[in-house]
Each structure stands twice: as C-alpha cells, then as structure tokens.
C-alpha cells in the first residue's frame, strides 16, 4: 500500500520554481533580443490594376502594396479568383525612415489573364501583422470578347489583321492626378518601319509621353499579335468631363498582290507597300476637383511625394555659405509642383538657386526628383536654425491632403578663421578631465565574459540541475509502489536465506510469508485465520495452486512454532517451501 507516502515531495516546489524561473528568464531574454521595431504600429494595404478593361487572353497587372510602420511586413497571398489565371511576377521593397519612425513597404505584382469574357471581381482581402489589420479595396476587371472593327481595325479571317486600341488606367481622376493612357497597335501583318503615332488630342490635359514606344508579342484570345504601345500620362488641368483621343497611328503595311502574268518575274510573288491610318476610340475621363480643406502650404502638388531636406554642413565659419537642399521625390506632375519655402532664424544673406527636375519616364507612371538649393551666408558667429520646411500635397490614393515637415536644423557659426581643415576644439559644456599618467584596467572590448567566469557559472548551473534531476529520479523511484513491493519482497527473501543462528524461527517465517503474500497481491490479510487469508489472496489474484501451497506451508510453520524445540528440526522443508514461495512471488511481481 502507498498510504503515508507523499506523492509530492516538500522540496519539489523549489525545483519547479527554479525551472519555471529559468524558463521565464530565457523567454524574457529571447523577447529582449527581438528588434524593437518588429512591432508594427500602422498597417496599410492597397491594390491597383494597371488597366480596368482588357480583351480575352490579354494580360492585366495587379499591384498590391503593403506598408507597415516597423519591420513586420506580412507576406502577400492572393486569394483564388474564379476564371482568372494569376501569375506572380515580381516583388519590390521600399523603406523610409522619417522622424524616427521606420516604415517598410512591399509591392507584389501579379499578371491576370481571363479565358472568357465577363466582369471579374478581385475581392478585398485582409492583411494581418500582429494585432493590426488592413484591407485592400475591391477591384473589377472587365474582360471583353469582341475586337474593334469599326474604324479601328482592318478585316481578316479569325479577327482583324490590324487594329488600334486606347485604354486608360482610370476613368475618374482628381485635378492634376495622372491618368496613364496606352495607345496600342495590334498587327498580324508585316509592315515597314516603325508605326508613327500622332499626338493624341487631349484638350484640358498636361501631357507627358512615357518613354519610347514598346514592342512585343501579345495573345488576344487565340490570336497572337505584334503589339506596339505608346504610353502617355495625362494630368488634368481643369475639372469636368474631358476626352482623350482618338489616337491616330500611321503604318506602312507590306501586302502581297496577285501576279498578272504567271511567267513574269519568274513567278515570284509581288508585294506592295500600303499606307494605312488607324484610329482608336475616344475615351472620357471625369475629373473631380480637389476636396476642400487644403493646408496653407498646399500649392497644387498631386501624387505621392517624399520631401528630404539636407544641409551640406552643420558647422560653418562666418561669411561662408550653408547650402540647404530640398529634394522632392515621387510620382506626379513634378514640373508643376512648387518648391517649399526655406527660411532661417538669422537675418543672413540668402540666395535661392534654380530648381532642377529629373524625370523618369520608364515606368507606368511619371516619377522623378525635383531639387532646389538655397544658400544662407551668416555674417556673425553664433548659431542659427533652418526652420522646419513644410510641403503639402494631395494624395489621390488616400483621398486626403498630406503634409511633411522637416526637423529644425541648427547650424553653428564659428568666427571667420584662417581656413584650416579642422574646425578647432569642440564646443564643450565644461572642463575636460586631464589625461592619465597611471595605467588603467585592461580587458576585452568584445563584451565577451571571461571564460573562467563562464565555466564557474554554467558549471554551477549544470551541477545544480544535475543534482536536482538525480535526486528527483531517486524520489520518484522511492515513491513507486511497485518498486516498494519489490524491495519488500527482496528483503523478505534475504531474511529467509539466512542460515545458522541468524535463520528466522518458524514463527518469524510464518509472519514473513504472510507479509510476502500481502506485498505480492496487495491484500490486507493481517489477523485473518489461514483459511480466510488464503481465500482473500485467491480473490486478489493468487493462483489456487499457490494458495493451497501457501496455506499448507503456513499451517506447518504455525504448528512448528508451537512444537517443542527438539521437534523443530523437521521444519527445514517448510522453511524451504516458504523461501520458494517468496521467490515465486518476487518473480511474479517482476
């Protein structure tokens, strides 16, 4: 029986406490190792199609941009869209660090193709980063089956041989928001030279052509075409319904003509060049005015911008210039964006340089950089500050005005000097401690603990944990009831095996035999008559043969216990039988 044996040692809580404390400390250390910026504070997600309408088999590009303040930018998994073949193409990453806030963005692009016409809904889907969530907006891709025939195309079996199309990436835009138009010539016939596009009519727009025409092969339905595409970005300069197009393209098509005389020119087919002009359809764009509530620093910039303000030096001598550069980068009509004002706290000579604008027309949108330098020439030593530079623009994607403000930049002005390379002694807050003449401490700068300390520390911890583990295993063994019964049977067997004067008396042997049966079959037979005890043991699982033998041996031993001393010599058989029974019990327990 296990009564009286505590199942949980009184020392076990301290071991558990130590283990829990060590685990908690390890977890805390692991958490401390995580970069602090891994906790995203703000999460946004945007989805954008490069065109809203395509033909069957024609690709459209879907760009999904996720921006997270912090570094934990979640992965983008596009949900399945019935009827659309989706292929992931590329992923690009962006990074910004502004006013101590780190922001990262990941843009994944997917090519979408439809095999049947219809309107395909790209559902909004949820992006999660920690406890933050963001949803993309729902988009619709219109897939058309028919190809333009009236005016824009030249006939042919299985679809037109030659046609021109105009597509817009959006049909609603804000004032001065870019609208990208694609004028595309599709051809299945050979033509000489490069097709020439006339500048498309677009009254009310500022026009920027995005690079040279691009050529490539494209499958429309079951037909493969050579495509020549010209991209133009239009920036509306007034509101209302404005029209773009029609675009006109001139090409010299090479056609084979029937040979009038089969014997002429050795029967070779003749070709002739035919000048053709194709026109696209005309599309309308609804231009909305910018919403009210523009900040005072807003001067008409619409798009996505980033302002950077740099000073070429933070310490300068009097009457030397400090150049402050404002750099506007981003997507939009940079040529129409006004430069922000730069001012300082000190009455100083100020010279504003000319702005330089660099445009990148290689992408789907016009982007670039506009830089302007302003020079300040302080007259007197001291310090002055370049006041915060504010730049406001309207962000059409978010539908709101945004303002970026730079930090105040303080410039120290030293007295006019001889023009040496160094700026001389640093400006100090107080006296500097003198140099030392006595030796100081030595050691490692690598922040690695000395190895003897490591050996002592980790050795002590291992020894402690080892001792705890060993003692715990021993305690568990001691508390195991089966092991306890085995040990009790072993002790009885050892006592019965004693010889000579140390050998147990018959009465003692009878008592040991009772205890052995109790230990083996976990039955309480103390004080019971032999017959009742044998019956209880049989109930507890003792085989009938063993029970009978046990009863017989016990009766003989009890008789011997009360026999005269000279009659006990014949009890050797009973003692052997008792030892044999105990041995069987022990084997049965094992």
């Amino acid at each position, binding site marked *: 029986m296990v009564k009286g044996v505590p199942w949980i040692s009184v*020392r076990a809580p*301290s071991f558990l406490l*130590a283990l829990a*404390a*060590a685990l908690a*400390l*390890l977890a*805390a*250390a*692991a958490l*401390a*190792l995580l*970069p602090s*910026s891994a906790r995203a504070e703000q999460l946004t997600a945007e989805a954008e199609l490069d065109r809203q309408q395509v033909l069957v088999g024609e690709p459209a590009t879907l760009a999904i941009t996720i921006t997270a303040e912090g*570094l934990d930018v979640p992965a983008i998994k596009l949900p399945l869209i019935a009827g659309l073949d989706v292929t992931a193409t590329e992923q690009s*990453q*962006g*990074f910004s*660090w502004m006013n101590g806030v*780190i922001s990262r963005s990941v843009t994944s692009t997917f090519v979408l193709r439809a095999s049947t016409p219809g309107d395909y809904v790209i559902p909004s889907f949820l992006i999660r980063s920690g406890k933050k969530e963001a949803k993309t907006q729902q988009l619709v891709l219109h897939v058309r089956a028919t190809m333009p025939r009236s005016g824009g195309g030249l006939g042919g079996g299985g679809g037109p041989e030659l046609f021109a199309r105009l597509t817009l990436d959006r049909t609603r835009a804000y004032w001065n928001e870019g609208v990208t138009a694609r004028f595309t010539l599709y051809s299945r016939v050979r033509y000489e030279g490069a097709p020439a596009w006339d500048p498309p009519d677009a009254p009310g727009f500022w026009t920027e052509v995005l690079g040279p025409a691009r050529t490539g092969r494209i499958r429309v339905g079951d037909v493969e075409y050579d495509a020549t595409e010209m991209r133009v970005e239009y920036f509306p300069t007034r509101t209302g319904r404005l029209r773009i197009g029609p675009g006109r393209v001139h090409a010299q098509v090479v056609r084979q003509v029937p040979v009038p005389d089969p014997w002429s020119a050795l029967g070779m087919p003749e070709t002739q060049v035919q000048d053709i002009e194709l026109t696209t359809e005309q599309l309308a764009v609804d231009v909305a005015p910018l919403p009210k509530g523009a900040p005072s620093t807003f001067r008409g910039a619409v798009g996505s911008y980033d302002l950077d303000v*740099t*000073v070429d030096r*933070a*310490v300068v001598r009097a009457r030397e210039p400090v150049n402050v550069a404002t750099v506007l*980068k981003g997507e939009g009509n940079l040529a129409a964006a006004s430069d922000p004002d730069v001012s300082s706290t000190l009455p100083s000579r100020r010279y504003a340089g000319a702005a330089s604008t660099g445009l990148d027309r290689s992408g789907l949108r016009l982007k670039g950089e506009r830089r302007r330098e302003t020079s300040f020439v302080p007259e007197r030593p001291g310090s002055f*500050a370049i006041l915060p530079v504010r730049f406001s623009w309207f962000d059409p994607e978010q539908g709101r005005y945004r303002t970026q403000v730079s930090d105040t930049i*303080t410039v120290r002005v030293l007295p006019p000097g001889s023009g040496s390379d*160094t700026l001389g*002694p*640093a*400006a*100090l*807050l107080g006296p*500097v*401690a*003198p*140099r*030392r003449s006595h*030796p*100081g401490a*030595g*050691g*490692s*700068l*690598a*922040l*690695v*603990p*000395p*190895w003897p*300390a*490591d050996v*002592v*520390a980790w050795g*002590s911890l291992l*020894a*402690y944990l080892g*001792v*705890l583990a060993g*003692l715990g295993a021993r305690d568990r063994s001691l508390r195991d009831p089966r092991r306890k019964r085995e040990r009790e049977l072993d002790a009885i067997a050892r006592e019965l095996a004693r010889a000579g004067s140390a050998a147990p008396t018959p009465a003692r042997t009878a008592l040991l035999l009772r205890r052995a049966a109790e230990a083996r079959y976990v039955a309480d037979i103390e004080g019971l008559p032999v017959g009742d005890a044998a019956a209880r043991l049989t109930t507890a699982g003792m085989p009938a043969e063993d029970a009978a033998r046990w009863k017989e041996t016990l009766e003989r031993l009890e008789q011997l216990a009360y026999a005269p001393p000279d009659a006990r010599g014949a009890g050797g058989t009973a003692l052997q039988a008792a030892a044999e029974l105990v041995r069987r019990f022990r084997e049965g327990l094992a």
Partner: protein
Amino acid sequence: MRLALFIVTATLVVAGAADAATAPPPRADVLYNAGTAALDQGDVGPAVAFLTAAARLEPRARDIQINLKQATAAAARARGVESQDEIEVPGEVPLSTAEIAWAGAILLLVGAALGIASRVTRLPRTLAIAAVLAVAVGAAIHVWLLARAHAEAVHPEAVVVVPQLAVERGPDEPSRAPVVLGAGERVRLGPTRGGQVEIRVAGAAIGWAPHEGLWRVQETPRYTARYATP
C-alpha cells in the same frame, strides 16, 4: 534553442580565449588619453569612439565619464542640437563585462551550493528560497551577457568619425533620400558589401555607408597611435 545558445556560448568563449591568447588586451588609460587628445583637437567622432571603448573597461571611472559626456555633447552640438535637454548621453551599466560575469558566476555558485545542500540536508526555508533566487538571477545575468555578446558579435557597435556620413540605399533597394549621420553618433553595423557596410539603428537597417567613416568600438585600439601623447 538550447543547442544554439550552447553553440553561441562556446564560440564566444573560445573566441574570447583565443583573442586573449594572441593579442595584448587594450588598456583603458591608453584609450582614455587618445579620446581626450581627440577631444582637445575637436575630433569629436574619434573622441566618442575612444571614450566609449574606455568606458567598457572602466565604466565607473569618473574622468572617462566626464570626457565621454563632453565628447557626446560636443558631437551633438556639431550636429546642430542646441538644447541641453536634447543631448542624450547613453546610460551604461556601471560594471564592466568581467565584473558582471563574475557577479553572476558567484551568485550561481553560491545558489547552486545552497540549493544542493537544501536538498540533502535540512536548511531554513528562507535559505532554500534564497538559493533558488540566486540561481535564477545568476542564470539571467549570464543569459543577458550571452545575448549582449551575441549582439556585439553579429552587429558590432560603431561610431561615426567623419563630420557627415550619408547613409544611402542599397543597390537593390528602391530610391529614397539618404540619411545623414553626424560625427559621434553611435550605430550598429551589419554585413559589408564591397566598401560599404550596413548601418543599423534601433535594431533596424537604415541603409549603407562607406566603412571608412566608421570605427568599430572593438577596434579603436588600432587607432590610438594617431592621438598618442608624447
């Protein structure tokens, strides 16, 4: 996790022992004097670097603390920080790595001895609890030291030593405005690529900069000859 920690610990211990065996250990007085000389000459970047290294060896030395504060303040002013309140001197633990390590080791040794004794003999309950706490605190100290040494090995601390250091975008990263760091600013370094090294601030990479403009705090003893006191 445990295996990784063990490997990192073993590597750091072996590396530390190997360093100690091959090179004479840097001395705080040499670094301090070089930092003070740099401060006198107005080279606040090198001054911050030398004095930061000296403070690693003698973190409670008053002269090192005074001059490090002066150098940090001068560097901040050179960057245009005018207000005294905006000048931040990074707080450090007033114990050297060796002192912290030995304190943790002694706590662990005493705690383990008392803990084992409490298991085999009868000890007062308060003593047994104190033993567990000592083991826990000692282990925490050494885990923290391990994490700090690992961070220093992977992303070593460095100081900007040129008046202005433009941290540009990497070659495969999108265009953005450069971040300009001033002399004396303390950053952490990432991998190197050509002549460029990745700059990390607050656990995040902010761009790449030429490594000539930075001194690793660990390597400052290499530059003390430039500011040697006659």
